[in-house]
């Protein structure tokens, strides 16, 4: 295993071309990179399609899924992004934090609901930005 310690990362191609900005500092590399992402479905059986830093999913009922994290986050306060698929043409579906707090250090609870605020099983994608423990 190799470890790299640095303060600034410079794009050599952009530097050679004289294109700015050509660099990024360590905080953006560490805190700006996605620590968790997963695409999953809950339509029939809750199943991971693709993922990073995700151990498993737990089906919490219609539209409700807990994403179990492999390497824990340092704190429960991190940013989530989510996208869901509206399968029925008559339903608006939105992703939602499932609880307060929904984001814990080792799991994230999310839900998808329709315009009647009713749980809705669908295809789901989430991304989390923050710091690992």
């Amino acid at each position, binding site marked *: 295993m190799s470890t790299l310690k640095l303060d600034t990362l410079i794009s050599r*191609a952009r530097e050679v071309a004289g294109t700015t900005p050509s660099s*990024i500092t360590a905080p*953006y590399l560490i805190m*700006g990179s996605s620590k968790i992402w997963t695409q999953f479905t809950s339509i029939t059986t809750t199943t991971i399609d693709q993922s990073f830093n995700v151990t498993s999913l737990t089906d919490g009922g219609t539209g409700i899924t807990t994403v179990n994290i492999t390497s824990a986050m340092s704190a429960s306060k991190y*940013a989530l992004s989510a996208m869901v698929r509206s399968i029925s043409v008559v339903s608006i579906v*939105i992703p939602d934090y499932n609880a307060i707090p929904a984001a814990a250090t080792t799991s994230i609870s999310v839900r998808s609901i329709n*315009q009647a605020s009713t749980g809705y099983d669908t295809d789901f994608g989430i*991304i989390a930005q923050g710091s690992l423990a």
Partner: protein
Amino acid sequence: MSTLRVTNAWPISGISQSLMRGMAKVWNQFADAGTVASNAGLNMSSMTDGGTGDYTTTFTSAMISNAAQAWKHSVRTDGGATISCLFNQTSYSTTTHRQTTFNDAGTTGNATIGSLVVIGTLA
């Protein structure tokens, strides 16, 4: 101070990855229980409460342009027989991002918990 100049970044197995432009340059997780407050964030200096469901995040380091940004919002919806909160990007600049929560009737409502992620290029 250490500086690394790279053309490509390669994992031990797999293909090279685009590092710089794919990083989030701003993120903010916040709550509004009457008073809006940031819980945690990256490259943000403050939040402004513009009224019910109206939030502006101010960046510490500016983005290079208005065009070179993509955003993601997430929100907790609470109660009601309808979708109670959706985020809408209201306005943005190189140093601020304003977002609003509203229901399906177009009425603004406070976000119990919300997130903003900005991906793009810093100035």
